[in-house]
């Protein structure tokens, strides 16, 4: 849902250089994480401390793997959104802030991919 006026859309951002898009995206990720966290947490808490073979078996189950992949994707998206706001709030110097925001997006993305790849590997039994 785009809360921009025609002019905002053309210019790319609102006059505050900050649109309502981020606000709404945070709500989306938050709501999605309510069921995803619960569904992910219990198999994970059970798997922690089990043997390697058992852990692979747990994430070999397609349902557990699906929940894990979704949890990682939405979770790291939510983490990136949250850290973005923290960086914007506490870093006034533009160069440092830009670098940190870039690093934030890249690292959260990379970690998400790493986690998803690991789950996929176990899900496909390789």
């Amino acid at each position: 849902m785009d809360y921009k006026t025609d002019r905002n859309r053309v210019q790319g951002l609102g006059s505050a250089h900050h649109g309502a898009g981020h606000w709404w995206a945070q709500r989306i990720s938050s709501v999605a994480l309510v069921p995803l966290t619960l569904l992910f947490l219990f198999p994970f808490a059970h798997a922690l401390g089990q043997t390697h073979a058992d852990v692979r078996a747990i994430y070999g189950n397609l349902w557990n793997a699906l929940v894990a992949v979704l949890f990682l994707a939405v979770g790291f998206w939510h983490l990136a959104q949250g850290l973005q706001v923290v960086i914007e709030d506490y870093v006034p110097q533009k160069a440092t802030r830009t670098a940190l925001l870039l690093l934030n997006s890249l690292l959260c993305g990379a970690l998400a991919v790493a986690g998803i790849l690991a789950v996929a590997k176990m899900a496909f039994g390789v």
Partner: protein
Amino acid sequence: MADVNRGNRPLSPHLQIYRKQITAVLSILHRLTGIGLTLGAVLLVWWLTAAATGADYFAVVDGLLTSWLGLLVLTGSLWALWFHALNGLRHLVWDTGRGFDLTTVTRSGWAVVGGSVVLTLLTMIVM
């Protein structure tokens, strides 16, 4: 403005003087738990990639995470997760425009604090 030089003049004390309120404390705690969960997220990915890599490497990582220090960190992360989730729900309710009167804010705040502790203990018992 953080980059302005204010010289050597004394500042008026605020955090040391003003009484801590449930609203402000839970607000900053929501942010702090969110930031703290970055560590939990990294540990989770580390554990998953270790499980997908092989038994030897998994034994190392799993051993670290289930050591007393690892379990301490995981318990803290679990509490942070529950707190952040419950307070997050509180935020979502506020987004609908409800619950802003002082009584509700105070009650829901204490419910989040108590609930996070209870749910942490429950999860630890069930797992």
